[in-house]
């Protein structure tokens, strides 16, 4: 089969697949979905935002596994760290590139506090309106990356116990809080109606801090300039 004929065959197959998908999307039976169910039980969830109610109450294990996956990714990235003696690049992180521009140096001191406030607001707003731990955590992570970029006296040291507690704290607190309902004979992660509101807000606080740290650690986790021996080991 020539190249041209193969191309035509592939495009025909792709077109047929796309047409099939469109056809089935158009002919989907009208399903009520779960929106009604969530709406009816919203009051029992402890928060007013339907999305947060699903993420942190009705389907809390989903979010629990999500933060677990994120932590695993960070552990994977940090495990690529070269040995005990840290290269300067590991602690200077992204500042190992060109000199930070004056604009960045001027901008960061103004921007970082604002970003911290926005992250806090997103965390707090998450219980009533769109927002929450992941959005807040991302803003926090972006602020930390800005700090690292500007080469200020801030670094993420993977070997420090405090760093490890910070990065894993969200998951650990989530797990601990999830185990509490077992004391009264309820299922794991089944918050009691009375305490669900405060539990969710506290878990989201922990998640926001940990997610921010994890995302920043992912960006700077491995030194940009690995020491010579790390490179040599991989070459044939």
């Amino acid at each position, binding site marked *: 089969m020539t190249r041209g004929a193969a191309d035509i065959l592939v495009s025909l197959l792709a077109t047929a697949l796309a047409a099939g998908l469109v056809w089935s999307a158009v002919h989907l039976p009208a399903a009520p979905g779960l929106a009604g169910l969530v709406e009816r039980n919203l009051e029992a969830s402890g928060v007013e935002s339907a*999305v947060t109610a699903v993420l942190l109450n009705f389907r809390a294990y989903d979010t629990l596994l999500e933060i677990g996956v994120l932590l695993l990714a960070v552990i994977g990235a940090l495990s690529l760290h070269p040995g005990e003696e840290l290269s300067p690049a590991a602690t200077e992180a992204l500042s190992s590139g060109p000199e930070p521009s004056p604009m960045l140096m001027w901008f960061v001191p103004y921007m970082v506090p604002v970003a911290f406030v926005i992250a806090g607001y997103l965390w707090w707003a998450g219980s009533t309106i769109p*927002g929450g731990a992941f*959005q807040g955590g*991302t803003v926090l992570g*972006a602020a930390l990356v800005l700090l690292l970029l500007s080469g200020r006296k801030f670094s993420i040291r993977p070997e420090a116990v405090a760093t490890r507690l910070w990065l894993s704290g969200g998951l650990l607190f989530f797990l601990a809080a999830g185990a509490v309902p077992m004391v009264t004979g309820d299922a794991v992660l089944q918050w009691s109606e009375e305490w669900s509101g405060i539990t969710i807000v506290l878990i989201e606080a922990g998640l926001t801090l940990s997610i921010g740290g994890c995302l920043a650690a*992912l*960006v700077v986790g491995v030194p*940009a300039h690995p020491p010579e021996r790390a490179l040599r080991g991989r070459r044939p």
Partner: protein
Amino acid sequence: MTENLGLAFDATLAMLLVWASAQATSRDLFRAVVMFIVLGLLASLAWLRLGAPDLAMTEAAVGAGLTGVLLLDTLGRLRWKRQKRGGPQ
């Protein structure tokens, strides 16, 4: 009037989405990464139009922002490694 404007906006957005996803497969990796970020921001707008502000925020922050930064960082490291080997670029 407002409905027509919304429809026109949605149609433009859909076309831009298709355009950006085509551009994101560019052979020039830097261009591909930048277009991937653009695609994420456009998708975020699309989520907003579909009435899912939560998804829109996550898409913009994680899909476009964080993934974009990680991809750019990876690109920088790859380039540095190639220079070290004395290869092209």
